[in-house]
C-alpha cells in the first residue's frame, strides 16, 4: 500500500536495520562467546577471532640443569614446551631479538655450545658435551599456533571459587518475594482508586503519580537510620532480607498502583454493576472478577519488578550489605571488576550468569513487558 515499500530504497532500510541490530547485539554476543573461550586464548586475541586458529608468541623456560640426565656421554635436558596443551610450534628462538630464528625441527646452537632442538609437537632436547651448570633453565621463545578451544571451565571456576553461586541464591532470595508482595498490596489499592468512590481519591492518585519519579536516593539515608533504630529496639540486625523485601515493596508500589489502576479503570463498568446487583460485596467483586481480568497488568508489573529487583545494585548494597555472604550478583560483579579487572574469563562468565535469568524472563514474557510499558507511558501521557 505504501509506495516506498517497492522502491530500491527498501534495500537501504534493510541494510540500516541490519547494521543497527548488529550494533545492539554484538556487545552481548561478544560477552557470551568470550565467556566460553579458553582463558589463555581469550587474553591474547579478540573474541571475533574465536573460530580461527590463533598464533601466539610466548616465552617458556626449560627445566633447569638440575634435571639433566647423562646419556651416552652427553648431558641432556628434555621435556615438552607446550606442557601437554594441544597446539603446534612453528618457530622458536633463544634470543629476544630473534624469537623466530629457527623452524620447528631444526637445531639451534646456543651460546655456550649446547644444542637445542624443538619439535612441532613441543618436545625439546638440550644436549651438551659437558655437565650443564647454573640454577635457571634456558629461556625459549616459541611461536605456537593453537586450534580454537571452547570450554565451560570459566563457568566452573566462577561458580566454585568466586562465590557466584552463593550470590545467585542471594539474588533469587531478594527478587522473588520482592516481586510477589507488592502485587498483593498494590492490587487492592488500585481497585479502591479505580472503582470505589471516596473523598480525596483524585488527590491520592496525583500523589501516586508524583511518587513515581521520586529518586530512590532521597530514601536511602532516612531509611538506613530508621532500620538502624528499629534494629536496635528489637535487637535484630539492621540489614536483613525482610528489610530489603519491604524496601523493594515500598519503592515498587507507585508504579504497581499506577499500572494496575490504569488497567482496572479501563475494565467495563457493566460487569461490576451486574455483580453488585446480584449481591456481591466489593471484596467478592475484587477477588472473583477484577483480579482474574487484570492478569495481563499483574503479569506486566511482575516482570518489571522482577527485572528491577534482580538487576538492582543500590538498594541491595545499602539495605542488605556488602559482606561476602550477603552480596547479590550485581554487587559481586562490581567487586570482581575491582579485584579481577584484567581476568576477562572470570568477568565475562560472571556477567553472563548475572544476566541469564533476566534474559530468559525477557524472551519468554516479552509480550507482557511491552504491554505494561505501553500502559504505563502512552496512557500516562
Amino acid at each position, binding site marked *: 500500500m505504501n509506495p516506498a515499500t517497492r522502491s530500491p530504497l527498501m534495500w537501504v532500510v534493510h541494510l540500516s536495520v541490519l547494521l543497527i541490530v548488529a550494533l545492539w547485539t554484538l556487545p552481548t554476543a561478544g560477552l557470551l562467546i568470550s565467556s566460553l573461550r579458553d582463558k589463555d586464548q581469550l587474553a591474547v586475541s579478540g573474541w*571475533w577471532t574465536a573460530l580461527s586458529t590463533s598464533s601466539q608468541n610466548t616465552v617458556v623456560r626449560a627445566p633447569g640443569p638440575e634435571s639433566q640426565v647423562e646419556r651416552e656421554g652427553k648431558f641432556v635436558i628434555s621435556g615438552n614446551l607446550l606442557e601437554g596443551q594441544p597446539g603446534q610450534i612453528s618457530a622458536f628462538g633463544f634470543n629476544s631479538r630473534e624469537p623466530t630464528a629457527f623452524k620447528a625441527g631444526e637445531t639451534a646452537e646456543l651460546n655456550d655450545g649446547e644444542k637445542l632442538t624443538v619439535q612441532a609437537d613441543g618436545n625439546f632436547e638440550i644436549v651438551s658435551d659437558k655437565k650443564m651448570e647454573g640454577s635457571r633453565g634456558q629461556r625459549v621463545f616459541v611461536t605456537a599456533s593453537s586450534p580454537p578451544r571452547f570450554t565451560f571451565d570459566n563457568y566452573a571456576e566462577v561458580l566454585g571459587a568466586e562465590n557466584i553461586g552463593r550470590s545467585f541464591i542471594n539474588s533469587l532470595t531478594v527478587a522473588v518475594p520482592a516481586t510477589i508482595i507488592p502485587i498483593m498490596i498494590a492490587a487492592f489499592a488500585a481497585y479502591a482508586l479505580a472503582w470505589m468512590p471516596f473523598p480525596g481519591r483524585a488527590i491520592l492518585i496525583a500523589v501516586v503519580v*508524583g511518587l513515581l519519579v521520586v529518586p530512590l536516593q532521597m530514601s536511602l539515608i532516612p531509611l538506613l537510620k530508621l532500620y538502624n533504630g528499629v534494629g536496635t529496639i528489637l535487637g535484630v540486625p539492621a540489614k536483613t532480607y525482610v528489610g530489603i523485601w519491604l524496601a523493594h515493596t515500598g519503592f515498587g508500589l507507585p508504579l504497581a498502583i499506577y499500572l494496575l489502576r490504569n488497567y482496572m479503570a479501563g475494565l467495563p463498568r457493566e460487569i461490576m454493576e451486574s455483580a453488585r446487583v446480584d449481591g456481591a460485596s466489593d471484596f467478592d467483586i475484587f477477588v472473583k472478577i477484577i483480579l482474574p481480568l487484570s492478569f495481563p497488568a499483574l503479569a506486566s508489573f511482575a516482570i518489571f519488578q522482577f527485572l528491577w529487583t534482580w538487576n538492582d545494585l543500590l538498594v541491595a548494597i545499602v539495605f542488605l550489605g556488602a559482606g561476602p555472604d550477603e552480596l547479590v550478583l550485581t554487587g559481586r560483579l562490581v567487586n570482581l571488576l575491582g579485584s579481577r579487572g584484567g581476568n576477562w574469563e572470570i568477568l565475562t562468565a560472571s556477567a553472563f550468569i548475572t544476566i541469564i535469568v533476566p534474559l530468559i524472563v525477557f524472551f519468554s514474557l516479552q509480550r507482557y513487558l511491552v504491554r505494561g510499558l505501553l500502559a504505563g507511558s502512552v496512557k500516562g501521557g
Partner: protein
Amino acid sequence: MLFQLVKAAGFMLGGVIGCAAYFWGTSFILDLMFPSKGKSGAVASRNLRITNAIRPWLFLGPALLALTVYLIYPVFMSLWYSVHDRAGQNFVGVSNYAWMVNDGEFRQSIYNNFLWLLVVPALATFFGLVIAALTDRIWWGNIAKTLIFMPMAISFVGAAVIWKFIYDFRPEGAEQIGLLNAIVVAFGGAPQAWITLPFWNNFFLMAILVWIQTGFAMVILSAALRGIPEETIEAAVIDGANGWQIFFKIMVPQIWGTIAVVWTTITILVLKVFDIVLAMTNGQWQSQVLANLMFDWMFRGGGDFGRGAAIAVVIMILVIPIMVWNIRNAAKEMKGH
C-alpha cells in the same frame, strides 16, 4: 543456603497469606459491625453508607502505609538531614549546601549530569524513533525490535562489564582484545584507554545507557506511530510529499506527546544513574555524577549523612519540574474520562 531459601519462601507465603487475611478479615469484621443484609431499610442503607465510606481505606491501608514509610517520610527526613551535621544531630544551617557549591567534585558532577541530560534522552529517543519507523516497514521488523529491546533486561552492572570489554585497552603493538581499539588499530589509529580520557569518557559511559534505553523508546514510539490515522498519511502522499516530509512533517508532529513522555522518563533515569559510573570508573578521570557522589559521601566519605542528604535533595529538585508536569497530565487525563 537452603535455610535461606526456605526462609524466603516462608516469608513470601506468610506475606501473601498475611495480606489475604488482612483484606478478607477487615472486610469480614466491617460487615459484621455494620450489617446491611437482613436489616430494615433505614438501618441497612445507613450501614451500607458507613461500610462504603470505610472500605476504600481498608483496601488502601497497607499501600498508604508503605508509601508513607518508604517514600514520603524519607523525602522530608532527607531535607531535615541536609541541614544537619554528619551524624544528623546538630543543626548546621545551609553549610552543607555552601560546602557543595564550593566543592570541585560536586561542580564536576553537576556539569557531567547536565551533559548526560543533554545527550542520553536525545539520542535514545532519536534512535528509538528512527528504528521504530524503519522496522515498521520490513517483514523481519519484529525480530529486529526484540533484539534491540533486549539490553533493557540487562542490569546496568552487567552492561558495564559488556562495554568495559569493548573499551578494553592494550598498549600499542599488543593484540587488542577490545572491539573498539581493534577497529581503531585496523584503520591505522593508535589504541586509547577510552574510559580514562577526561571529558570524552563521559560519552563512552553514556553510550551504555543509550544502548539500554533505545529499546524502551523504540517500543513506545512504535506503538504511537501505528496509532497515527492512516488518512493523514494518505493525504500527504496524494499531495506529493516524499518519505522524509511524511515522517518529519506529518508523523512526528502527531506523536509529540508520546515523544515527551519517553524523553522525560529517560531524563528521570539519567538523573539517578549510578551503577554504570560506579562499575566503569567510580567517578575517576572526571566522570563523577551526582548519584555516585552521594553514595561516596554516604559510605566511603566516612559516612557524612548531612552532605549525602544535601546531594540527594539536589537530585530531587532537578526531578520536581518533571513531577509537576506528570501530575498535570494525569489530572488532565482523569478529567477527560
